[in-house]
C-alpha cells in the first residue's frame, strides 16, 4: 500500500490542479443552474487521475490507496466545489466496503467482481441507515427470494449513481448488518424527487424507495457479522470524508478572506492590519489546522494510547463541519457585503457547508451517540 508522504503531497498537488482547471470555472454557474452532465464530465475527466479507482483494491484492478488519501483528495476537490467533491465522497464510501471485506479476508462474488472490473467503473452511492423515519430498510427471505423493501433517508449521489450500495443495520433479524449492491434501474427501485436543499446543488439528495426489490444472492456483498463490520467501516470513512470536504470548503473561504483582507482598505489601512481581523483570521486558521489534524487522525489505524483519546470519525465530522461553518461565516463577515453576493462564491460555500454539517446525522445527536453507544463507559 502506497502511503509515503511525498506520494500524498503529489496527489494533493495534482488534485488541486485538477480542481482549479476542471471545477472552478463552472462551479458558481452550476450552483445556479445545475447540469448533471457537467458533473458527469468532471467524473470522466477525473479518470485521468484514477480518482474513481482510488479506493478499489489492487486485486480488483484498482489503485488501492488508503482512505486517508481519499480524504485528502476530497479536501482538494471541495476547495473548488463541495458538491462535486460529494459525488466522489459517496462513491469512495461505497468502495470502502471492498477494503473492509479484504481486511476480513472475505471473497467478493463473481457478479460484484464483474461490476468492479467494468470499464469505466460505475458511480456508486452508499445508502446508510441514518435517520430512519417512514420505514427502515429491511431485507427478508420470502419464498426463497431475498426481498429488499423500505425507504431510505436522503441519499447522496441519488441522481448520479449507477449502483446503490445499501447498508442495513442490525435489527436482530435475518437482515443483520447486510450490504447489498443494486443497479439503479432494478425493478422496484424508485428515486424520489430532489429534496431541494440549499447546498451541494450539483449533487442533489433524494430518498430511494425499494418496492419489494428482488435481490440476487450474488449481489449480497456480506451479511451477519461481516456485514456489521462493513457498515461500521463505511460509516467511519463516510464521516471522515464529510469532515475532509468541510475542511476543504472552508480552506478556500479562509484563503479568500486572507486575500481580501490584504487588499481591502478601511478605517485608514488595509483591513489585514486591524487586530480584530487578525484575530478572526487566526481563529479560522486554528480551526482549519485542528480540523485537518482531526480528520487525518480519524483515518489512522494506529495511534498513541492516551487516556480517553478517541479517533472517532463521527467526532471529526462534528468538529470539522461546525468549525467550517464558523470559518465561512467569518470569511463572509470579512468580505462585508461582497461576501453575501453570489459572484464572490462565499455564500455558496456557506450553504454547502451547512449541508455537510447535517449529513450523516445531526451534530448534537452524534455527540450523544458517541457516549451512549459505549455502555462499557458507564460501567454497565
Amino acid at each position, binding site marked *: 500500500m502506497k502511503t509515503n508522504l511525498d506520494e500524498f503531497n503529489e496527489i494533493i498537488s495534482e488534485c488541486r490542479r485538477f480542481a482549479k482547471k476542471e471545477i472552478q470555472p463552472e462551479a458558481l454557474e452550476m450552483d*445556479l443552474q445545475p447540469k448533471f452532465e457537467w458533473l458527469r464530465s468532471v467524473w470522466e475527466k477525473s479518470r485521468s487521475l484514477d480518482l474513481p479507482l482510488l479506493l478499489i483494491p489492487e486485486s480488483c484492478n484498482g489503485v488501492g490507496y488508503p482512505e486517508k488519501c481519499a480524504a485528502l483528495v476530497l479536501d482538494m476537490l471541495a476547495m473548488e466545489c463541495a458538491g462535486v467533491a460529494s459525488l466522489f465522497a459517496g462513491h469512495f464510501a461505497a468502495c470502502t466496503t471492498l477494503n473492509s471485506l479484504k481486511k476480513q479476508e472475505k471473497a467478493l462474488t463473481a457478479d460484484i467482481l464483474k461490476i468492479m472490473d467494468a470499464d469505466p467503473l460505475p458511480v456508486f452511492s452508499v445508502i446508510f441507515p441514518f*435517520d*430512519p*423515519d*417512514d420505514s427502515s430498510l429491511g431485507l427478508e427471505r420470502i419464498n426463497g427470494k431475498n426481498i429488499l423493501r423500505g425507504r431510505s*433517508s*436522503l441519499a447522496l449521489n441519488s441522481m448520479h449513481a449507477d449502483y446503490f450500495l445499501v447498508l442495513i443495520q442490525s435489527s436482530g433479524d435475518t437482515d443483520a448488518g447486510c450490504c447489498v449492491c443494486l443497479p439503479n434501474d432494478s425493478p422496484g427501485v424508485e428515486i424520489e424527487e430532489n*429534496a*431541494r*436543499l*440549499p447546498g451541494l446543488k450539483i449533487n442533489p*439528495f433524494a430518498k430511494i424507495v425499494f418496492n419489494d426489490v428482488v435481490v440476487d444472492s450474488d449481489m449480497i456483498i456480506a451479511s451477519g457479522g461481516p456485514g456489521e463490520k462493513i457498515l461500521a467501516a463505511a460509516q467511519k470513512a463516510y464521516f471522515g470524508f464529510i469532515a475532509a470536504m468541510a475542511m476543504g470548503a472552508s480552506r478556500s473561504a479562509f484563503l479568500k478572506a486572507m486575500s481580501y483582507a490584504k487588499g481591502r*482598505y*478601511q*478605517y*485608514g*489601512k488595509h483591513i489585514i492590519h486591524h487586530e*480584530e481581523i487578525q484575530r478572526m483570521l487566526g481563529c479560522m486558521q486554528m480551526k482549519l489546522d485542528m480540523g485537518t489534524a482531526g480528520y487525518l487522525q480519524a483515518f489512522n489505524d494506529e495511534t498513541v494510547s492516551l487516556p480517553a483519546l478517541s479517533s472517532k470519525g463521527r467526532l471529526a465530522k462534528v468538529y470539522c463541519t461546525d468549525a467550517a*461553518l464558523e470559518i465561512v*461565516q467569518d470569511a*463572509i*463577515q470579512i468580505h*462585508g*457585503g461582497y*461576501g*453575501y*453576493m*453570489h*459572484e464572490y462564491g462565499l*455564500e455558496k460555500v*456557506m*450553504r454547502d457547508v*451547512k*449541508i455537510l*454539517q*447535517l*449529513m450523516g*446525522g*445531526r*451534530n*448534537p*445527536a452524534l455527540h*450523544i451517540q458517541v457516549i451512549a453507544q459505549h455502555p462499557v463507559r458507564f460501567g454497565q
Partner: protein
Amino acid sequence: MSDETVNYGLRARSPDLLDTVPGLGKLKSACPKYIEKAEFAQKTARDFAKNEIAPRVLEIDQKCAADPAYFDWELWETANAAKLNITPIPEKMGGLGWSALDNAMLVEELTSACMGCASNITFNTFGLLGAMVECKTDIVLKIISQMVDAQRRSKPLFWSWAITEPSAGTDVEDEEAMATMRPSTHAKKIEGGYLVNGTKCFITNGSLAHYVIATIPADSAHPKESMATFFIPTTTKGFSVGRIERKCGQKASQTAELFFKDVFVPEENVWEPPGKGLRHTREILSITRGFIGIGGLGIARGALERGIRYVSRKKVKNHRLIDEEWVQMVIADMIKDINTVRCAGINFAMALDAYHVWKMFDSVPVKAGLKIVPEKILLGKSLQALAEKSMFSHAGSEFKKKFVSDEQIETFVYYGSLVKVAGTDLAVNITSRVADMVGLEGLSDQYGIEKSFRDAKVTQIYEGSNQANRIDIVKHALSKMGIKNLGVPDENKP
C-alpha cells in the same frame, strides 16, 4: 399534526406583548393607551404577516432566485392598502401614527415571516427618516404629503438611502474612518448647486427608488470635512441603476448599484451642506440600527417557529423528534435568547419614544397643531408655501434640536448598536441551530428554515458591520467611564 397546534410566533395568541415582556404591565397601568396601541400594532402586523406574507413567501423567494429583478407588487399593494409603509406618519395626516414601540412590533412580526418582504414595506420610511433628521418644515411637509398621496392612490413611492460605496463600506458611518476613506463619489460645487459623479453599491430598493438620499463628499481628499447629504430624484439626468445583486438571501428585497454621471443637484436639494453629512448619517443610524436588531430577532423567532413545527411533526423511530431531551434543551436555550433580545429591542424602541424624534409627536405644539389644523390644510399647498419661507423652514430644525442633541444621537447610536449586534448575532446563531435541530430533511426548501438561514447572515453586515457597531459600543461605553483616545499613541494624547 396541523400547523395550528403549534401556538408560537405568528400563531401565538394575539396580542401577546405582555406575556413575553410582562414588565410592561407596570407601564400599562401608568400609560394604558401607549401599551394598548402597541398591542394593537402587534396584532395588526401579526395578522398581516400570517395571512399575507407567510403563505406566499417561498414562492416569492423562488421567483426572485430565478430573476433578482422580480418584485411582488401584489404584496406591496396589500401592505400599502393597510398603510404599513407609512406607519409613523400621524393619523391626522393620513398615516397610522405609530410610535417607535408600535413600529418595533411591526418589524418583529413582518421579519418573522420574511425579512426581504419586510424590507420592501418598512425600509420605505427612509424618506421620512431623512426628512425628519433634516426637519426643515417645508421638507417634512412635502415628504409626508407625497407619501400619503402616493399611498392613497396606491402608487409606488420608494426612497433609498445611499451611503455605501464600492471602496468604502463602514467608512461612511464613522468619524475617524471617514477621515481616511477613499470615496467613489464626488460632488463638485457649481453655480446653483452641485454636480455629482460616482457609484454607490448595495443600495436597498435602489432599483425601485423614486428618490435617493445620498451622502457624497464635495472634496475627495477631505471626505469628513466635506461630506454632504443630497436629495436626488431618480428621474434626474445622469442617474442610472446598475445591476440588481444576486444575493444569498433576502431575495425579495432588491439591492442595486447606483451610478451618478454629472447629476445636477440644485441647492434646495442639498439636505445637509458639506461637513454636515456625517451627522445626518449618524442620526439615521441612531434610529435604524436598533430596528435592524429587531429584524434579526424576527428572523430568529420565525426560524424557531418553523423549527418547532417541524420537530413536533417529525417521527424518529417510535417518537417525535421533539420528544428527545437534547432537542428540548436546544429549544429552551433559543427561547431564552430570543426573549432576552426582545426585551432589549423593546427597551430601545421605548427609549426612542421617550427621548428621540418620536418625542416631538408628544410635544404640545405638534399635538396642538395636529389637533387644530384641518387635514386639508396640513397637507395643502398653502401651508407648504408658507413653510418654504426661510423663517418657517428653519423653525422645524430649531424646534427639533431642542429634543435631539448631538450627544443624544451618539447615545442612541450606542443603544442601537447594542440591539443591532445582539439581534443579528441572534439571527445567525438561531437559524443555524434550528437547521442543526431539524436535520437534512428539515432543510428542504418547502419548510422555509433554509431561507431563514440564508436571510440571516447579511444582517450582521449591513447598517454597519457588527465590527463597526462594536467600535461604536466600546468607544461610547469607555468614554462614559472616563477612558478616551482609544488607540492613540501616548505621545499624541492630549
